[in-house]
């Protein structure tokens, strides 16, 4: 049963600390997305990659956030230094175009719930 995995599931940290979230996309998917979900803003796209190359990171605060794909099986999202306003659930999703429909689907991981004190 192919699925997106994310670690850690929960993270509590203090303001100013570095946070690293990891994602393993579904094998064969060529696009990886990072989203952030809060009650107020809903689900917001932070960045996404295709074939490991960054395509769009305009949703990400550049001064403290960074996203990378060191290889096809791992995507990382780092926050340094973390702030209380970064508290949210961070989702990774992977997807691609499948079959002849040209549409495909984005499959979401279970998320990392981040609390910054």
């Amino acid at each position: 049963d192919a699925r997106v995995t994310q670690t850690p599931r929960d993270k509590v940290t203090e303001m100013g600390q570095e946070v690293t979230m990891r994602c393993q996309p579904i094998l064969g998917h060529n696009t990886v997305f990072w989203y952030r979900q809060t009650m107020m803003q809903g689900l917001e796209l932070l960045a996404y990659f295709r074939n490991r190359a960054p395509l769009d990171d305009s949703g990400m605060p550049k001064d403290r956030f960074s996203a990378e794909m060191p290889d096809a099986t791992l995507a990382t999202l780092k926050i340094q230094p973390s702030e209380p306003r970064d508290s949210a659930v961070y989702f990774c999703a992977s997807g691609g175009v499948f079959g002849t429909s040209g549409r495909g689907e984005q499959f979401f991981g279970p998320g990392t719930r981040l609390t910054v004190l």
Partner: protein
Amino acid sequence: QKEVEQDPGPLSVPEGAIVSLNCTYSNSAFQYFMWYRQYSRKGPELLMYTYSSGNKEDGRFTAQVDKSSKYISLFIRDSQPSDSATYLCAMSPISNFGNEKLTFGTGTRLTIIP
């Protein structure tokens, strides 16, 4: 103003009732309209999608798009307690939406009361 607006609820209805969930949008370039279901402490899962205007039915679920009004709906017939979840609408201007960014509504939290 957000490109996609969705009433966050919460919405509580008795089991067996018909549920109506809605989103409005401002970007006329959106052509593909999706509904995701998200259970507590889980990631969103695609429920169904429609292209342009019209209806699409899948079991107890019907998605409806009115592009002239920039308004989409999801209807759930014979609602069950297992339908209790947050429902998010999402939209894309292009067909390969598995591979491109989506614009999401904030989600509506739905509870079906047994």
